[in-house]
């Protein structure tokens, strides 16, 4: 053995010693007693004193907070039925569970506090003290290349079909499959199949790797099963499962949508596209706005189905067209969702103590403007104005399929304007998505009640959505805050001409300088000769 070999040997021993000390699943030192203090301060409100997930705030949440006593965890790297590793638990604590009330604690608690609280929550379940349980992460392969090419995605789609993802997630992945209305989690709460177009809301993370892992492990406690056995049974290969993960990833945008405050409505020449599926809309900038449950006025709503809305707008100098696109897993009213509606109302029967009977309610959307473009920063109350400061709204319902304009004086009073004032509206429901186009002239006769759109002004705008099958009706709805709509002014010809003139002048001057310099040079040369 040479000196160098001996040194390598010593190194290897050192690494092995380290591996023994830091065995997988046994991270740094943890102190459950210290963890209890952290738990009581930060976690107890939702997860409860005994860790059963029944804290005081729990009933306002869907999905409900985790019940630690059963030690059943959605986000794991272990096989279905296995306990999570410590690293799995740390991940959920650190990163939170997107799309739920569970925040990321990485920036709120120190690493020591997070480790201790993880140790403490394990004490709620005897499964963790059972020494015969050895949670071990599955051996995951890494993603095969070419994940974005058409062929890979076609293979992925084939397996989406062959393992019947559509049963719950729907043909296009918006959670509108035929089994979706019947889904419940282990404690019996209603649960919906993930909308695969919104990876920023995936509980275990948005990446292809995260999706692959969820396919391998399943989400225990939910209807989402593990597909690992299918690889063992050679129903599909590991690479094909990766292709499926890549296909699912391709359904969401490359980046999670960012909220921009001002919707720019470009001016176009000629007729506006009034059909929701007019190809002209594919060339119009789209703005995303998050929606949240209406929790200010009773009856409140903590489980909104519509979590965001995409808005596009165009005008032509005389009219404006606004296209709204939002995902909604049911075309309400739909009797096949009625049982789901009932279960949801039972689950969310909150402090309002009004027993509500489920009904066949329509889907709805509302676009809200002030009645007049404000001069300063003052705007009416975002939640449908007030008696002293009402708002102008467009409202559309799926059944009967129609649109109306009206004036809201707060959440309780909506005065519909005469039918002649209603904006034109066309709507399409397609595989879990509504697309609605409103159109109205910029100016109207009823200047007292209706907003007069003006070019080049910041016009406040807000949005509301109701999913009837999700028990949404009246004040049970999803709301946005105020944003702005700006009708862009047409670009004057001088905007384009001026730079051209400037360029021509600059070029001309340049040429002149060069020519004069050459002449002088030429004169010098001839003098020398």
């Amino acid at each position, binding site marked *: 053995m040479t000196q160098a070999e001996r040194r390598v040997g010593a190194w290897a021993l050192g690494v092995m010693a380290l591996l023994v000390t830091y065995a997988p699943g046994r991270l740094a030192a943890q102190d459950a007693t210290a963890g209890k203090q952290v738990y009581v301060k930060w976690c107890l409100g939702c997860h409860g004193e005994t860790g059963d997930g029944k804290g005081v705030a729990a009933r306002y949440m869907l999905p409900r907070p985790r019940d630690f006593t059963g030690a059943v965890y959605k986000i794991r790297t272990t096989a279905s039925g296995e306990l999570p590793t410590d690293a799995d638990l740390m991940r959920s604590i650190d990163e939170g569970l997107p799309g739920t009330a569970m925040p990321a604690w990485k920036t709120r608690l120190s690493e020591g506090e997070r480790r201790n609280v993880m140790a403490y929550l394990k004490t709620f379940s005897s499964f963790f003290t059972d020494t015969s349980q050895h949670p071990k992460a599955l051996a995951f392969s890494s993603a095969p290349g070419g994940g974005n090419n058409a062929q890979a995605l076609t293979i992925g789609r084939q397996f989406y079909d062959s393992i*019947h993802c559509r049963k*719950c997630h729907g043909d296009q992945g918006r959670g509108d499959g035929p*089994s979706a209305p019947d889904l*419940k989690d282990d404690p019996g709460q209603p649960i919906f199949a993930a909308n695969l177009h919104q990876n920023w809301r995936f509980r275990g993370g948005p990446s292809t790797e995260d999706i692959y892992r969820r396919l391998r492990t399943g989400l225990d406690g939910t209807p989402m099963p*593990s597909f*690992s*056995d299918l690889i063992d049974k050679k*129903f599909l290969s590991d690479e094909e499962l990766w292709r499926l993960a890549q296909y699912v990833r391709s359904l969401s945008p490359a980046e999670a949508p960012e909220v921009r405050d001002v919707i720019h409505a470009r001016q176009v020449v000629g007729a506006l596209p009034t059909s929701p599926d007019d190809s002209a809309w594919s060339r119009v900038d789209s703005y995303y706005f998050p929606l949240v449950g209406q929790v200010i006025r009773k009856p409140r709503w903590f489980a909104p189905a519509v979590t965001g809305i995409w808005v596009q707008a165009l005008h032509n100098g005389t009219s404006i067209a606004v296209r709204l696109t939002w995902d909604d897993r049911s075309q309400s009213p739909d009797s096949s969702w009625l049982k789901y509606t009932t279960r949801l109302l039972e689950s969310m029967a909150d402090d309002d103590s009004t027993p509500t009977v489920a009904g066949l309610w329509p889907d709805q959307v509302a676009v809200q403007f002030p009645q007049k473009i404000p001069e300063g920063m003052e705007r009416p109350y975002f939640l449908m104005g007030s008696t002293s400061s009402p708002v102008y709204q467009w409202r559309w319902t799926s059944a009967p399929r129609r649109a109306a304009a009206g004036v809201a004086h707060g959440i309780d009073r909506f005065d519909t304007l005469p039918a002649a004032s209603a904006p034109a509206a066309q709507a399409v429901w397609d595989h879990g998505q509504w697309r609605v186009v409103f159109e109205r002239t910029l100016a109207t006769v009823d200047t007292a009640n209706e907003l007069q759109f003006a070019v080049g002004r910041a016009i406040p705008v807000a949005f509301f959505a109701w999913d009837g099958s999700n028990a949404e009706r009246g004040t049970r709805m999803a709301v946005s805050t105020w944003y702005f709509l700006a009708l862009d002014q047409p670009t004057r010809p001088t905007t384009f001409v001026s730079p051209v003139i400037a360029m021509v002048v600059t070029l001309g001057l340049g040429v002149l300088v060069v020519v004069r310099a050459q002449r002088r040079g030429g004169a010098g040369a001839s003098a020398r000769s």
Partner: protein
Amino acid sequence: MRTVGSLAAVGAGLLVWVGSTRGAGTAARSTALEGATITGKVKFVGKAPANPTIDMSEEQKCAAKYTTTPREPIVEVNANGALANVFVYVQAGLPADAKYPTPTTAVTIDQSGCLYHPRVFGIMVGQPLDIKNSDGILHNIKAMGKKNRPFNISQPTTMTTTRTFTVSEVMLPFECNVHGWMHAWAGVLPHPFYAATGTDGAFSIKGLPAGTYTLEAWHEKYGTQTATVTVKAGETKVADFTFTAK
């Protein structure tokens, strides 16, 4: 380096040896069966509720297996008033330290016609459970144990998956989320003294050692009932149960 390797090998060998001697100890304690029998019938009194119909329109392959509208087999009572799908088992009375050999033969639960067959069954701790999909359409099998680890696996085609349970649990529910009407229950026990009633409502528990036993009868809708039965070696005794309509 070589010394480190051989040390590790010796260590591993030691672990294996310790493990095997422990196993041998428990095997030696298994009790011989003396052959007393408890039989009986489970009866149903009153008007049996109509079982809910199942809408199988989404699953033509399953729907094709039925000539009449399929129903959830929740309360199955025959013309003689016998109640099916009742799990009867020895809840207490066996010697505390008795051990029973784990059968290597698997219990099979089949998904056929978008229903589980059987709906109610017993299985021993450690005994293999073959979960079979004869339908060849997507089923997921969610086992929702509280004492055993719950699991949820996918079967999108005709296939069989084998699982075992580690501890006693009565009853351990199964469900399919693709077909919300599919439910089954397993009674997981550390001993072989259990039976589930068929359409004739009859059960028979054989091979019991002489003693006094608490029998429990479980039904998914009507809950549990108990009976105390004393048997001598080789004796057969009858214990009937009666469930009443609510």
